[in-house]
């Protein structure tokens, strides 16, 4: 047995100890080729953690009542002991900002450093979604710019006016992202410089579009046939920003800010399982390495294991506390399983994963982390072994039938089916209703037509009218929402004057 020379023995932490642990963890992480942004580790109190929560992880946020609401519900739940605060919060920026809570023990701090500063951090830096869609360099500057801009707007146009605008934008936030097109990277410097220019230009474009001076008849005839936009537009906020007839330039800028921030968070929403799984896998591996090298005590590793096990625990569906599939549990299990398939494949694994069974596990894990998002990751790497371990089964809930049906379980006939179903469950484009801008009545009432492509008879819930009201506030003219299934228009919803024509 190796001689133990632990970095620390007590449970208290101080900055020297944090540094020592960070160095040890960093050295090991480098051995595993974890490529990270520099870390900026900030120690904060629990109140500050609640603040950070409330700003949905933005270190600098503009002011809005909804963040206040969020803060108050977190505070209330925390005070009553209904929920503990997360041990950490990490921000996709360069340097990568991670928060440590002051009341954590040194074990927890080390765990968080491994999890956030090396796990999440390397994921942010290397996963293709983050690489293409977010700009870690610019985000903090952009958020500062956004807050300043919105504060200025409040001063100039009144808090109420700005609040109404933000409410409307937030309602459309989840439909304010480009899903397939790569956006121009954010840069606060550029933003500021070009903003004036953009304002003028934008207004001019809008004016062109809504020109009321009659043009020649031929041109008119052409226009009558064409829809605008020519292709349906999935990014509702983008369309509003560019083409809403009545918005002031500053309003367009605010729409743009909300849209940009939504876009920044979009990759995180698509990689929950992977991101948490990756970070959890690495904190587990790194902590165990620390123990193997004799750098931590038995007490330390016991405390760590206790915490780790509760994080990756998956409750069964019939447990009263069941709250969906735990992304930490699934992600951690998948990465661990992937390593197992590489190192110690069974016959079944060779059949299911011929190209990775027996390959170098570290290469494979890095490859998986870099090139997938939740749905494709599951589609590609969920093994029958894991499906059995989780006892996965799929359940069909059809409102035309009186009973639920078990469509597949973890057996030979079911593996493919379950893997598909689970992947779909994580696909944001299926989870969120498919609503796109279809047409604008350029020459008449200027009404805006949205098209909801319905799948499997899954309609919109009642809130949709509320959202339409918000969209109407932005657009300024009537909104029509058509629901289509296949080639048939099934329902129309209008705002103002709500009347369902089935």
């Amino acid at each position: 047995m190796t001689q133990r020379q632990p970095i620390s023995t007590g449970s208290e932490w101080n900055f020297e100890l944090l540094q020592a642990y960070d160095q040890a963890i960093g050295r090991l992480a480098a051995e595993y080729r974890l490529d990270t942004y520099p870390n900026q580790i900030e120690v904060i109190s629990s109140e500050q953690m609640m603040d950070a929560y409330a700003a949905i992880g933005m270190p600098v946020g503009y002011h809005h009542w909804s963040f206040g609401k969020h803060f108050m519900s977190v505070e209330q739940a925390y005070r009553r002991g209904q929920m503990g605060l997360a041990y950490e919060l990490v921000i996709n920026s360069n340097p990568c900002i991670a928060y440590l809570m002051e009341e954590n023990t040194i074990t927890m701090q080390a765990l968080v450093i491994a999890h956030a500063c090396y796990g999440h951090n390397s994921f942010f830096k290397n996963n293709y979604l983050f690489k293409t869609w977010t700009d870690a360099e610019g985000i903090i500057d952009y958020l500062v710019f956004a807050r300043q801009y919105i504060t200025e707007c409040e001063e100039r146009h009144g808090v109420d006016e700005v609040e109404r605008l933000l409410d409307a934008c937030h309602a459309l936030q989840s439909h304010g992202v480009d899903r397939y097109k790569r956006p121009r990277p954010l840069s606060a410097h550029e933003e500021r410089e070009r903003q004036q220019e953009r304002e003028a230009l934008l207004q001019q474009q809008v004016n062109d579009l809504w020109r009321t001076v009659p043009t020649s008849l031929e041109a008119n005839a052409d226009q009558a046939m064409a829809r605008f936009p020519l292709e349906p537009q999935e990014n509702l906020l983008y369309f509003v920003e560019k083409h809403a007839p009545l918005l002031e330039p500053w309003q367009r800028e605010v729409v743009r800010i909300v849209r940009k921030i939504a876009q920044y968070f979009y990759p995180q929403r698509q990689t929950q399982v992977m991101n948490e799984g990756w970070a959890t896998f690495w904190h587990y591996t790194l902590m165990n390495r620390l123990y193997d090298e004799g750098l931590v005590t038995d007490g330390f590793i016991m405390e760590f294991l206790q915490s780790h096990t509760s994080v990756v625990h998956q409750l069964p569906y019939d447990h009263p506390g069941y709250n969906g599939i735990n992304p930490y549990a699934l992600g951690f299990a998948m990465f661990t399983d992937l390593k197992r398939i590489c190192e110690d494949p069974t016959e079944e694994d060779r059949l299911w994963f011929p190209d990775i069974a027996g390959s170098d596990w570290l290469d494979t894990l890095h490859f998986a982390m870099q090139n997938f998002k939740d749905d494709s990751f599951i589609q590609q790497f969920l093994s029958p072994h894991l499906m059995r371990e989780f006892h996965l089964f799929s359940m069909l809930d059809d409102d035309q039938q009186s009973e639920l049906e078990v469509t597949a379980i973890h057996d030979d006939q079911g593996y493919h089916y379950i893997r598909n179903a689970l992947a779909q469950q994580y696909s944001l484009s299926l989870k969120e209703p498919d609503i796109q801008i279809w047409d604008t009545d350029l020459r008449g009432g200027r009404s805006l037509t949205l098209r909801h492509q319905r799948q499997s008879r899954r309609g919109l819930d009642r809130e949709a009218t509320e959202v339409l009201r918000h969209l109407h506030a932005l657009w300024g003219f009537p909104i029509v929402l058509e629901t289509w299934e296949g080639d048939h228009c099934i329902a129309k919803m209008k705002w103002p004057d709500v009347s369902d024509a089935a």
Partner: protein
Amino acid sequence: MSYFIDRRPNGRNKSAVNRQRFLRRYRDHIRKSVDQAVRKRSITDMERGEEVSIPTRDIHEPTFHHSQSGRREGVLPGNKAFHQGDRIARPQGGGSGSGGQGQASPDGEGMDEFVFSLTRDEFMEFLFEGLELPNLVKNDLGSAEETRPIHGGIVREGTPSRLHVVRSMRSAYARRLAMGASVRRELKACEAERDALLAQPAGLQDTQQLAALESTIEQLRQRLKKVPFLDTEDLRYRHLKHEPVPSTKAVMVCIMDVSGSMTEQHKDIAKRFFLLLYLFLERNYDKVDLVFIRHHTSAREVDEEEFFYSRETGGTIVSSALKMASNIIEARYPPAQWNIYLAQASDGDNWDDDSDVCVQWLTQKLLPKSRYYAYVEITPHAHQALWEAYETVQSRFPERFAMRQIVEAGDIFPVFRDLFKKTTA
């Protein structure tokens, strides 16, 4: 490469603005809760904030969602006994949700009220929004004769308990230096002379002169010794000046009619009115005393419990209470030290010829001494003699005397606001 930053000193109220925004947006809801809370609480039980709940649907932020309809499929963990093709009765609440979000349930299921706490200050803020004490009170505050001792420098006379040791010792040292200076100078000279003599060869010494010098030196030493170490005139004392300050004490005299005609409901309304007044005064004064006087044909001073909850019946003589109030004020609350507020609640009933007596008591005894007199009449009926009599009082003391009618509980707050609304602006 990692950097560590200690952010703990940075202050924690980053969300304060957002919290204010939230409170601002939901003013109406919160005010309603505050009003309700006022109904439930005891007069003196206001040392806390209030839990406010707002229906979740009112603060919900809408987005496009799928409804529960249609064909939905979900994957769940923890299968125990199911086989492919099994059919199961649909459980209550809509079956297999795929609600894997970690956030506080956005579907709003299971949580239909958003509950949060107002701090005490925020609570009061909402309660007394836009109110202020009648102007005259502020003007008069300066003339109140209350004094407060304040530090007034160092003086030579005082009581031993206020002795300033350091300053006393310092002046003693100075005096000792001054008084001994000439003697010491002489002593030095003599000693030098003596030393010079002693330095001469033994045979040449003038022994007579030497002896004279020795005795002078001895005398001088004695004189130095007699300079007292500490003298009475060295003593210094910390001085206290008495500076007049505006009185920060107030007494609130609550007068309520408990005759047979006052029902429980009337009393409840009166209680809430008193409660509001008490809270309001408490915000403006350090100390607020309460005096409860209840009356039917005769008046009695009682404690809060009895004031609001015990029952009595009989006729009504209002002047008995006014007389009692006047006596109490005279005995216990000199107007120079106390800001006196009176609040009277009644249903307007009074003995026929008593109303004129009331006017006498008010105009001659009570109003000249008090800051404000608020009379609320809790009745849906037409006014009686008392109201008319009081109207004459009001016309004579329009600044200090206010009267309003309350018909039902809902009127209390508006009437209260009306009585104390900001007169400036």
